[in-house]
């Protein structure tokens, strides 16, 4: 469904992605692992159109979205929940969620809002509050709920567990599993290697802007190389 084919991208003259190839199938959870600076966030930003690929192709549901603008990519069904959440702090929780369906899913806004609030009951209590006053965990939930408001086919999550308490991290991974059960594919970028591999179907390891290792999540979890470099075993 999502096909990233030998994509290169970077900022100015500095290349970050040096030919990344990766696939996400319908309803799959795919984890992308790698050290800081390996290019995980740039990969996400390139898929969602914030960064232009300088080479290679990105296909989504049969369409070439390599040169598409971010709003066209949202309209196609990709929702990107970025690192650092990027919620609208000056707007209320409710308004943040409304804007989640600005480009896609507007017709079913009320129904989707209700569904998002059953998934995130804590947001329901805070609908009229400005989003900047939420706790870090609540802001992360809001960012994900805002992403779901656009009825995505593919949800990109960038470090969703960053800065959350261990209990909330646990909750976050349960939530990601539930999102997939609802039929949404998830591209999950995480530092949290063990838990990511537990819920993912497949995984890629990025190293210096290229895929160095890929396979079934269970296979990778047992891979001695990965164990050594990421799990410290």
């Amino acid at each position, binding site marked *: 469904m999502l096909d990233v084919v030998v994509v290169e991208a970077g900022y100015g003259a500095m290349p970050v992605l040096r030919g990344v190839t990766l696939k996400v199938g319908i309803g799959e959870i795919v984890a992308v692992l790698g050290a800081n600076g390996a290019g995980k966030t740039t990969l996400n930003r390139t898929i969602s159109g914030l960064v232009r690929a300088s080479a290679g192709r990105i296909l989504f549901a049969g369409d070439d979205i390599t040169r598409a603008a*971010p709003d066209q990519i949202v309209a196609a069904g990709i929702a990107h929940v970025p690192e650092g959440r*990027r919620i609208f702090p*000056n707007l209320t929780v409710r308004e943040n969620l409304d*804007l989640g369906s*600005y480009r896609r899913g507007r017709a079913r806004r009320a129904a989707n809002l209700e569904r998002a609030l059953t998934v995130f009951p804590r947001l329901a209590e805070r609908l009229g509050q400005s989003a900047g006053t939420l706790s870090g965990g609540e802001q992360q939930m809001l960012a994900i709920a805002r992403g779901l408001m656009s009825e995505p086919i593919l949800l990109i999550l960038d470090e969703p567990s960053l800065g959350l308490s261990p209990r909330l991290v646990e909750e976050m991974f349960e939530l990601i599993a539930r999102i997939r059960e609802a039929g949404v594919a998830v591209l999950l970028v995480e530092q949290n290697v063990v838990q990511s591999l537990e819920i993912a179907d497949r995984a890629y390891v990025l190293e210096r802007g290229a895929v160095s290792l890929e396979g079934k999540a269970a296979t990778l979890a047992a891979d001695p190389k990965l164990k050594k470099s990421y799990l410290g075993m």
Partner: protein
Amino acid sequence: MSLLLPSIINGLTTGAIYALVALGLTLIYGVLHIINFAHGSLLMLALYAAFFAKTLLGLDPYAALPVLLLGFFALGYALQRWVIDWASHGRDQNILLVTLGLALVIDNLALFFWTSTTRTIDVPYAFEVVDLGVALVPLPRAIAFVGALVLAALLWALVGWTDLGKAIRAVAREKEGARLVGIRVEHIYAMSFGIGTACVAAAACLLLPTFYVTPQVGYAFVLVAFTTVVLGGMGSFLGALVGGLLLGVVEALCGLFLGESLGQIGIFALFILVLLLRPTGLFGARLA
């Protein structure tokens, strides 16, 4: 003291126009984070448009208002999208210079084509008054007051309740998040600039029946509008509205007590006072 109440009411009618001009300025500032130096020139242009609509087409300024509103919205949209944004490469200091340059070009073109002659229009209702019991208010001023408040309320509703308004506020604070929900940031910039410009077109139509137009006319208003925006709090809607009305009243009262020509002293005395005591303005920042 029998002059006091009429003075205050007169000040409120002027203040409503200040507020309308300032609302446009504060919207553009709040979203694009730039001071639009061309704002006064666009007001002048709108006054000429209303003037020629009357003299060439026989269209009353109030009848021309909806047309000019749309026309200047389109002009503002186009200016931001295809002149300011294009020429400034998205850098704030460049935007500042581009709007300043635009102001110089518009002002001098106006001077070239229309000379510095002061022009006014004749309307049949110019000397009609509304009797409020405590004071007689010239009809055009009463219309300007009500019209400005209605437009301010519409703008308030637009920014507060519509998806466009939410997107405008979202872009003001979080551009990247806005892009990620599919908001086209350049479009929202241009919409904000267009709406801000539409505000001066409305102000021009409400103003012209009791005012004049020359190529320099924008400065008088935009200076007060800048003051209003800072006084009310940069980017604050309520601040622009209250600030505009307040300045109108202060100006009228100073005119009453110090003599007509010294009325504006009060505006800047109040301005300095607010800057000293409350530098963020009366209402802080709402949009930004």
